[in-house]
C-alpha cells in the first residue's frame, strides 16, 4: 500500500513537472505577481517608520524589510489554489473522473502543490536575493531560531494546504464559493500578519488573531525566524500549529465524506 503510494507520488511529480515546464512563462508571470504583494506593504510600513522618525512599534525600515522578505518565503510555502479549482471541477462534474480512480484525489493535489513550490524556487530564490540587496534587511536573530524556521515553514505550508482543501469542500454545498473564498483571504490578510506585523494591530484585532488559524501560517514562522520569540512561545507555536493541522484534517475528512454523498453529475 505504502509502496504504491510512493510510486504514485513519484509518477505524479514527473508528470506535474513536465506540465508546469510547458507553462513556464505563464507560471513565471503569476509568480512575479505573488512576489510583488508583500512588497507593497513593506514599502508602506517603511514609509510610516520614516515619517515617525525611524521606528514604529519597535520596527525600523531594516526590521520591516526582514519581516516582509521572510514573508515572501512563507507566502510561497502557504500558497494553495484548490478552492478555486474545486469550485470549477465540482460544478462542471469533472470530479467524476477523479472519483473513479482507486486513490483519494487529495494525493494528486498534494503532489501538484509540492511540485509547483519546488519548481518555482528557480524564480523565487533569485528574486529573494535581488530584493535582499535592494531592501537591505536587518536581522537580530539566533542560529537556533533560524535552524528551527524550516520546520515551522513546513508546518505552516501543511496547515495552509489542509485548511484550504477543507475550504474547497464548500463547493459541494454552494455554487457561490467565490464569496466564501474572498472572505477567507480577507480574514487571512488582516489576521495572519500580512497587512502589518501583528503587534502593530489594534489590541482587539490581536486578540481575534490569537484564536484564528492564520497567524500560525504567517506570523509565527516569520517571528520565529526574526528571533522575536522565546523558548516558551516557540514550543507553544509548534504545538498550536500541530493542533490546527489535526483539526483541519478532521474537518476536511468529514466535509469530503458528506460532500461526495451529495455530489451528483451527469454526462462527463
Amino acid at each position, binding site marked *: 500500500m505504502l509502496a504504491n503510494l510512493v510510486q504514485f507520488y513519484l509518477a505524479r511529480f514527473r508528470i506535474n513537472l513536465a506540465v508546469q515546464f510547458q507553462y513556464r*512563462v*505563464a507560471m513565471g*508571470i*503569476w509568480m*512575479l*505577481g*505573488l512576489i*510583488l*504583494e508583500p*512588497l*507593497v*506593504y513593506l*514599502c*508602506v*510600513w*517603511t*514609509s*510610516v517608520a520614516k*515619517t*515617525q522618525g525611524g521606528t*514604529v*512599534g519597535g520596527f525600523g525600515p531594516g526590521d520591516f524589510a526582514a519581516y516582509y522578505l521572510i514573508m515572501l518565503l512563507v507566502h510561497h510555502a502557504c500558497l494553495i489554489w484548490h478552492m478555486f479549482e474545486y469550485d470549477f471541477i465540482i460544478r462542471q462534474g469533472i470530479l467524476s473522473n477523479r472519483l473513479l480512480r482507486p486513490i483519494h484525489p487529495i494525493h494528486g493535489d498534494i503532489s501538484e502543490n509540492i511540485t509547483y513550490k519546488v519548481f518555482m524556487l528557480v524564480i523565487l530564490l533569485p528574486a529573494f536575493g535581488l530584493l535582499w540587496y*535592494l*531592501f537591505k534587511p536587518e536581522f537580530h536573530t539566533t542560529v537556533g531560531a533560524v535552524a528551527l524556521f524550516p520546520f515551522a515553514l513546513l508546518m505552516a505550508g501543511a496547515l495552509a494546504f489542509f485548511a484550504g482543501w477543507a475550504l474547497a469542500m464548500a463547493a459541494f454545498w454552494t455554487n*457561490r464559493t*467565490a*464569496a466564501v473564498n*474572498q*472572505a477567507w483571504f*480577507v480574514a487571512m*490578510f*488582516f489576521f495572519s500578519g500580512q*497587512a*502589518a506585523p501583528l503587534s*502593530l*494591530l*489594534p489590541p482587539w484585532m490581536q486578540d481575534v488573531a490569537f484564536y484564528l488559524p492564520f497567524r500560525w501560517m504567517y506570523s509565527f514562522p516569520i517571528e520565529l525566524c526574526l528571533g522575536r520569540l522565546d523558548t516558551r512561545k516557540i514550543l507553544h507555536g509548534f504545538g498550536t500549529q500541530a493542533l490546527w493541522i489535526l483539526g483541519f484534517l478532521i474537518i476536511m475528512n468529514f466535509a469530503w465524506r458528506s460532500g461526495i454523498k451529495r455530489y451528483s453529475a451527469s454526462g462527463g
Partner: protein
Amino acid sequence: MFRHLSLALHYFRLGLATEMEYRMNFFIQLITACINLAVSLGGLEIIFSHTQTLNGWTHTELLALIGVYFLMSALIHTIIQPSLQKFMEDVRGGTLDFLLLKPVEPQWLVSVRQVQVMQLANVLLGAVVITVALMRMGTAITIAHTAAFLLALTLGLIIVYCFWLMLATLVFWFLKIDNILVIFESLYEAGRWPVGIYPAWLKFILTFVVPVAFVVTVPAEALAGRLSPQTLGIGVLLAVAMLVLSRWFWRRGLRRYEGASA
C-alpha cells in the same frame, strides 16, 4: 465620428441586455467590491493609528486616492479589459477576419466591442468614496480644481488604454500571451498607495513602464489640490506619445495577421 460613437453605444446596450439576464450577479459584484473596499479602508485605519501622514498624504487625501483607484480599476474592467481580451482570443482563433471585413476602423472596434456593465457598480463605489473624501477635505471646489482633476483622469484613461492596447497587440507576434495582462493587474495593486512611498527603481517602473502613477496617483493629487502644472504637462506629453506609439504598433501588428482557417 458620430457613427463610431453610436456603434460603441450599441455595444454598451448589448452588454446591458446580456447582464440583465443575470441580475443577481450585479449585487454579488457590488458586495465583492464593498469587501474589497473594506480591505483598503481597514489597511488605511491600521496605518493611520501609527502616523498622521504617509509620505505627505493625510488620511482624507489617501481616501480620495483609494476612490480614484477603484474608479479607474472599474473603468478599465468595464470596457478596456473585456474588449481586448476578446480581441486576443480572436487573433488566436483566427476569427478576427470577420471583424476586419466590417467597414469600420478595426482598432476602434476591438477596443469597445465587449462591455461588462456589472463593473459600473464599482464605478459608482469609487465615485462615492471620492465624494466622501472631498466633503471631508472641506475645501471649496473651484472650477480650476475640477478641471485639473477631470483632465488628469482623462489623461490617465488614455495612457492606460494605450498601454493595454500595446500589450494586447503583442498577440500578433506571440500567440500565447494572454498571461501578460496579469502583469498589469498585479502591478496595478501597487497603485492603492501613492507611488511616492516606493523606492526610486520601483517608482520609475510604476511611472514609465506600467503607468500606474498617471492613472491613480496623479488624479488623486489633483483632488488633493497639489498637482503641479509640470506633472500635468508631462502627463499630456506621455498621453500623446503613447497614442502615437500604440497606433503605430497596432498597425505593424495588424500587418502580420494572417488569420487561421476561418
